């Protein structure tokens, strides 16, 4: 009993902060939308359009990132070379970059003075600029998603049993067959967990679109403009509460499905 009281006292401060500064604000947010806010986001076509483009951008980001990170994870899990750990450290560096910095790096890469533009001109072509288009936005999203998924997929690739692959190969499976029937099924749980993190992060991402001043109206940008420029608090609250519940649900489902592999 004494033990229980102490446990309660020790965890109470953290719970109090959670209640006062997260749960209660979330409650305010849920209510502030009002009937008007929630019906507006369901009936006005521009909010529906923004919702659809956000989901499409997040889905495309997830697909591209999983494709890249799975190949890199499989490769990096199998090779050992000098500087491997340095390379891994560099590849996970962008984890600590806020979305705005990622947006700026996309401009450094694909903006008017960007690396792609310089290279394309040096090769005698036109100045290629795509930082502010859908391609630029996707590039930024993939940029911050790769470091978030790579380590999970690499760890999964390291846990694959090499004997299964040997067996498949000695039974005459082609390299593609090995990939399809042995490697990918073995990595599927990690891919689901990493994909969910990727999807949820991309849905809620804001800084990158903000820095690129992108023409694509992703949901967080709409929330920001509704709140600051239009002072439309009801719609901003309704949208952000729905968005928050949705990203939380995606992550909770993924965690349940993967048995705790998803953060």
């Amino acid at each position: 009993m004494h033990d229980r009281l102490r446990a309660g006292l020790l965890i109470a401060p953290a719970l109090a902060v959670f209640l006062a500064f997260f749960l209660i604000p979330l409650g305010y947010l849920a209510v502030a939308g009002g009937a008007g806010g929630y019906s507006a986001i369901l009936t006005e076509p521009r909010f529906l359009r923004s919702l659809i483009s956000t989901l499409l951008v997040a889905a495309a980001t997830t697909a591209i990132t999983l494709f890249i990170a799975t190949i890199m994870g499989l490769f990096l899990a199998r090779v050992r070379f000098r500087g491997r750990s340095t390379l891994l450290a560099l590849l996970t560096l962008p984890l600590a970059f806020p979305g705005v910095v990622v947006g700026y790096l996309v401009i450094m890469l694909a903006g008017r003075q960007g690396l792609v533009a310089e290279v394309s001109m040096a090769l005698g072509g036109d100045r290629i600029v795509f930082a502010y288009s859908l391609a630029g936005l996707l590039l930024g999203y993939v940029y911050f998603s790769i470091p978030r998924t790579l380590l999970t997929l690499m760890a999964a690739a390291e846990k694959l049993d090499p004997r299964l692959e040997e067996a498949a190969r000695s039974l005459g499976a082609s390299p593609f067959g090995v990939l399809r029937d042995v490697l990918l099924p073995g990595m599927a749980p990690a891919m689901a967990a990493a994909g969910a993190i990727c999807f949820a992060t991309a849905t809620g991402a804001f800084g990158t679109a903000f820095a690129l001043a992108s023409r694509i109206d992703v949901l967080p940008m709409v929330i920001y403009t509704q709140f600051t420029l239009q002072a439309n608090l009801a719609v901003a609250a309704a949208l952000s509460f729905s968005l928050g519940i949705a990203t939380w649900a995606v992550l909770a489902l993924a965690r349940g499905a993967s048995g705790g592999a998803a953060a």
Partner: protein
Amino acid sequence: MRRGIGFWTGLCFTLLISAFLILPIFASVIAGVTVNQFVGISSGLTTRWILDVWANYGGTVLLSLQIAFATLVITLLLGIPAAYVLARHAGVTARLIEEALVMPVAVPGLATALGLILAYGAVGGLRSSWYFILVGHVVFCLPFMMRAVLAVLLAIDLHRLEEAARACGASWAQRFFGVVLPNIRGGILAGSLMVVTLSLGEFNMTLLLHTPFTRTLPVGLADAYTALRTEMASAYTLIFFALIVPLLSAMQWVVGRLDQQRGSR
């Protein structure tokens, strides 16, 4: 490993993606110390932009450091006891509390910030003080501190350590400060580095919580990206990198050491 076509494809692909992730960082760093971005690096190197940025935006760097440090102290005080309780109790209630406490990570910062403004925006002078940003950062960073400490608490044999100390007549305070804390140093360090890194880079929440008098580093960066010339924006980004990269490297080193220890145990 057989170096067939699969190896070379994998190598080229990995190098290409690494270039995509790393080259823009270098491009930005170089632009920050180049005399004239239009001419390129042949125009010479300079620290002028960095000094200019410091003169105009130095305050944002200092405020960010202040908030990060305060966030660290608070998350240490709240997170370590919470993790300790969660590690010692296996029941459903403990798991539900754990699930609830990590929720702020899953909800976009924009939503949390909007909720905070709705709930406390009109309370006294809170809205215009840096405490408002601090509150947001604590809510967002606490789960990371808790999880880092919890991971180490679950990896060590906490129960047996405590029992041994208890058998020797140690009081609870002696056990907690003399046995538990020294054994989870690594987790506390990893969590601390994580919290400071996250707080320094937090943007989604801070953009809504800040006022013109409480601008943090990332908020200042966003402003610089739209208002300043490339050299200045890059120099400002360079200052951010100079703060964040050593922290992240230290964190990777600590986490690597922890994994090694766990592996050899």
